Every structure is written in structure tokens, then in C-alpha cells.
């Protein structure tokens, strides 16, 4: 699933390939936050505001190395997006991280059981992200 991306002028990233993260959140404030946090850790970031748009993008250009999504979104929740990703033969290897402002154990367990890589409580901090990105290589 990894495509070699020679000559990406933006630099950053460890080694020859920059890790591409797809961030999904309906909140413009949180999109700006997560994008900045990820970029400051040298990841390439694409942001979308819905699960639907995330799936569209994944269908077109699956060079995404990780998905980080808010749980609570109108129309399609992060959990539903997670399920769709894990049900797809092309996408299921992509690690999915769920973010939520609510610490609901049932919810966390359900997401992890469905194959989520991790579950982060919002507001997300740089230390949360560096912790999990170091596991996803």
C-alpha cells in the first residue's frame, strides 16, 4: 500500500518517505489543531470534515499511512468510519486512531475491539501524537 514518493520537495519525515496522515473532524478548530500538531511532528497531513469525504479521498488516493478521526461527527461517526475502513480489503491495513472529548469506557472498548489502533482524549496534545506516531512506521 505504500507508494514510493521520490522527490517530495517538502522535506521532513524520517528517511525517504513522509508519513501521510488523514485527519477527519467536523470541527474547524480541531482540524486546525490536529493538522498543526501533526505537521510540527513532520507528517504530511490532509484534513477533511466528514467520514464521507474521508472515504472518497481514500478511494481515490490510498497513499494514506494513518487515519485520525473524531468520534462524534454528524452523519457518519468515527466508529462507523473505522468499521468501513476495516471492512475494506484495500484499506484495512491503515491504522485508525479515534479522538473523543468524552472518556466513555464502552465507547473506547468498542473502538479498540473494532480494530482501532488507539483512542485519544481531546483536547489532543503534541505528546499524545508523538507517542502514537512512533508506533506507526
Amino acid at each position, binding site marked *: 500500500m505504500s507508494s514510493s514518493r521520490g522527490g517530495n520537495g517538502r522535506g521532513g519525515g524520517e528517511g525517504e518517505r513522509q508519513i501521510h496522515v488523514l485527519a477527519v473532524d*467536523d*470541527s*474547524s*478548530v*480541531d482540524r*486546525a*489543531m490536529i493538522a*498543526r*500538531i501533526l505537521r*510540527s511532528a513532520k507528517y504530511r497531513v490532509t484534513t477533511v470534515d466528514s467520514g464521507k469525504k474521508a472515504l472518497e479521498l481514500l478511494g481515490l488516493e490510498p497513499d494514506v499511512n494513518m487515519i485520525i478521526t473524531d468520534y*462524534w461527527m*454528524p452523519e457518519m461517526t468515527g466508529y462507523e468510519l473505522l468499521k468501513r475502513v476495516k471492512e475494506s480489503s484495500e484499506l484495512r491495513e491503515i491504522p485508525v486512531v479515534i479522538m473523543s*472529548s468524552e472518556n466513555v469506557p464502552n465507547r473506547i472498548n468498542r473502538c479498540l475491539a473494532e480494530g482501532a489502533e488507539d483512542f485519544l482524549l*481531546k*483536547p489532543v*496534545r*503534541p505528546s499524545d501524537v508523538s507517542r502514537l506516531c512512533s508506533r506507526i512506521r
Partner: protein
Amino acid sequence: MESSDLQRRYIDFTSTLFREGFLDSQYTQLQQLQDESNPEFVTEVVTLFFQDSEKLQDDLTRTLDQEVVDFKKVAAHVHQLKGSSASIGAQRVKNVCMAFRICCEEMNREGCLGCLQQARQEYFLVKSKLETVFRLEQQIVAGGGSIPTMW
């Protein structure tokens, strides 16, 4: 020297904001994410918060004004407002949202209206204080000084 005068005013003003609970440590996180390659990060995110919040307050007013109130919808708007205020460290707004959530769960329209009014007050307070912070920062920079880091 005017610059150090402004800097002192800035330090006093922002310390007070933290001490009085208008802002919490999440705001400091925002400041720490700002650097030479992202020099406007804080004002950009805060501006998004202003836009988002004002729209949500309008949505809340409209939703609570209906003959039959859809409390699920109210709760969804409150959840969003709570989320974005938490994300920028607007602690008092966030706290009002927590009480607001409870009124939604209780399907208490009067309670919700009271919370909305409080949320609006806290929002406008923090907005004007943040605008003062940004203005002071601009003045410091215009005077050739550097903005004191508060951490």
C-alpha cells in the same frame, strides 16, 4: 521605555486571564505550537473559534426557540461548543457547556435558556479579552519588542 511598559502590561493582563480562569493550560499549548514558520497560529485558531461559536450560539437560539424543542439537537450544538472552547482553552465557556449538557439531558428548556445566556456572556468576555491580548501583541511587535513567553 514604551516597549517594556507594554510587555509588562501584557504579562499582567495574560497572567490575570489564567488566574481568573478565563483561559487554561490548553491555551498555552496553542502558544507553544506557534513558531516562526507558523507565526499566526494562535490568532488563526482563535478566529476559527470565534466564527464557530457565534454560529453555534445562533443555532442554539433558533433550536431553543421552536414550539417543540429538539433537545438532541441542542445537545449536539452544545457538544460542539464545549469541544471547541476546550480546544483553545476557553475554560469558562467550556464549564458553562458542561452545565448546559445537563439541562439538555433533563429536557429543561428554561435551564437551557439560562445556560445559553451564560455561555453568551462568557463567550463575549473571553472574546474581548483575547482581542486585547492580540492587540497588545501587535503593539509590542510594532514597537520592535518581542512578545514575552508565559511559560
